[in-house]
């Protein structure tokens, strides 16, 4: 184990995979000369040269499509979006291109591509730069989606994503890049579709993903002071979704709260709540609660932004609600 930042863990995963497979290359805005807008690709241009670490013009639709095409031809692109906000421009190539190619071609043309970059809000970046993009991607059959919340998971999940033969979106967090944690040395791959119980409680389940695991753990800490022990289940991967792990925690606690950074309508929590009521109805002692961003575009003003973001306080309240503690 080595302690490192989430940023360096992502970098380590790319080195690990690019060292072993020449068909893997990194393309995106500012990834080469500038070491990445968030310095995730630091040193990679020097190590692999301009053939494999490529600065793209600000043409998201074009370069995402180019990467999809390269993947159709058998290469394994890592397509970096400076942030997933900008990938909304590229969604046609992701959804109409990458997601459907294998199916439309009757299995003849796989698209082994990774789309990666930060999703969600940072601090006061306002409406166009602060949105959680998970559901745009997860909605489309043909796309896989992982959302690492810790440095170890960042390394392991990105490595798995690169090795996967399908399009995989890896959604990171701007506020996660400096988070430090222990990361396994040497080859480290975390399989897609395996959730991780980040805290074991037993009274109530907080199910979440990505950067929100830190908010969930904070809420769990506060609940513990009142003698309430929460499970914190980090899904890590939204497609494939570890349904067994979700059902297991609900079977143990009989109460669930889904916490996510995005908007409520058709959110990840809506999907998970639907699953729980379908497959574990008898386990439930309370309706599944959800904590999301307020249903508004992200405002700039600090006080409004804080109000709009899901925080530990709202999670604690939701947990108390499903425990009927008022």
């Amino acid at each position, binding site marked *: 184990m080595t302690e490192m930042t989430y940023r360096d863990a992502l970098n380590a995963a790319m080195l690990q995979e690019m060292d072993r497979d020449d068909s893997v290359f990194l393309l995106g*805005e500012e990834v080469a000369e500038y070491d990445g807008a968030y310095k995730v690709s630091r040193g990679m241009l020097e190590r692999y040269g301009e053939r494999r670490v490529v600065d793209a013009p600000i043409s998201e639709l074009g370069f995402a499509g180019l990467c999809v095409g390269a993947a159709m031809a058998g290469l394994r692109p890592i397509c970096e979006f400076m942030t997933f906000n900008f990938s909304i421009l590229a969604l046609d190539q992701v959804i109409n291109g990458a997601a459907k190619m294998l199916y439309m071609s009757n299995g003849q043309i796989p698209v082994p591509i990774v789309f990666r970059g930060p999703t969600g809000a940072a601090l006061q970046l306002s409406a166009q730069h602060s949105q959680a993009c998970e559901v745009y991607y997860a909605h489309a059959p043909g796309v896989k989606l992982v959302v690492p919340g810790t440095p170890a998971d960042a390394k392991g999940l990105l490595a798995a994503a690169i090795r996967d033969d399908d399009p995989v979106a890896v959604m990171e967090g701007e506020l996660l890049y400096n988070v430090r944690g222990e990361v396994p040395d040497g080859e480290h791959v975390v399989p897609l579709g395996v959730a991780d119980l980040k805290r074991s409680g037993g009274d109530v389940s907080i199910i979440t993903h990505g950067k929100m695991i830190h908010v969930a753990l904070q809420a769990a800490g506060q609940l513990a002071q009142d003698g309430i022990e929460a499970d914190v289940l980090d899904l890590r991967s939204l497609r494939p979704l570890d349904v067994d792990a979700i059902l297991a925690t609900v079977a143990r606690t009989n109460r669930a709260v889904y916490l996510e950074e995005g908007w409520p309508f058709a959110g990840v929590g809506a999907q998970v709540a639907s699953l729980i009521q379908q497959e574990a109805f008898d386990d439930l002692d309370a309706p599944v609660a959800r904590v999301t961003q307020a249903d508004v575009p992200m405002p*700039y003003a600090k006080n409004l932004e804080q109000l709009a973001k899901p925080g530990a306080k709202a999670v604690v309240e939701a947990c108390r609600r499903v425990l009927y503690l008022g």
Partner: protein
Amino acid sequence: MPGGVGAPEAEGSPDEGGIAGFSREEMHALLAEMLLYRRFEEKAEEAYAIGKIGGFCHLHIGQEALSAGAIGPLRSDDQVITAYREHTQAIAKGISPRAAMAELFGRVDGCSGGRGGSMHLFDPSVGFYGGHGIVGGQIPLGAGLAWAIRYRGGDQICLCFMGDAAVNQGAFLESLNMSAIWQLPIIYVVENNGYGMGTAFSRVSVTEMESRSGAYGIPAHTVDGQDVLECYRFFEALAEEVRGGDGPHFVNAVTYRFRGHSMSDPVSGTYRSRKEVESQKRERDPISLLRDRMFEAGLLTPEELQAHDDRARELCADAADFADSSPTPDPATLYDHVYAEVGDRGRLFLDGRDAARAAAGGAGR
């Protein structure tokens, strides 16, 4: 006195005591205006450093001549739309320094009520349509503003700014084509400061900027974006041509950014040397260029310059004080303006807010 200043279209003979057709008063006004922009940005920089402003904040320092020289000649009912490096453009179009600064501070008296911040200044009442954060996103919107002008039979025009890096977006190409087909009253202005963040334009384009509009049959022009007099005369004449039905035009305004891409980026680095930045600041500062010409022509005294600068600093200090004393937005307004119409049937907000209101006897069930 330097010769050949101003666009060839400039009409009339130089006023006595002026340069290139500009009267002494006009030049003083342009100088004062640019000083205001410079001091405003420096004040924003200062406020950012002490945490009064957050998020991304992109300064226009070095590029002020374009705000004074391209927006200055417009009519008040003409329209401007632009990207996120827009503070001085907003002021040039008529947003007060107070309302602009209050927006940067995220306060209710800001021109977007504190919701938008540095990248999203708006005031349609003065023809300023934002303030957009997605590179290239404002370009089709500009075409739409111009479309509406033509649709209504108006004689206004739209000035649509973008950075050099934005011309690589599909939205740019598509917009140019449409505005050419429909002969829209729009001037596309590239503030060509040579870089998109850390990437030189020459690294992402094998052609010159000026060639970018030719494929769509749109006339292209290059102007010195550091020369406020040239810009002013040029845009004054071009605005009238476009107003007269000449269709879209494309302007490559060559300029330079004196600060880092945003407050969180270094001024220089691997992508441009400190030496390059220093020499641009020394030789191509739009304010010094005008100042020196006025000095040489005997049209400006050091005392007058000082007075302009004092006034600019005063206005910006006042703007910052105003911003700081403006209240933060009322939390109760969080859901205001998500929709223009919030009816009493059906549930608009799905985060439990409407359910809570319904339980309290309000709308939203």
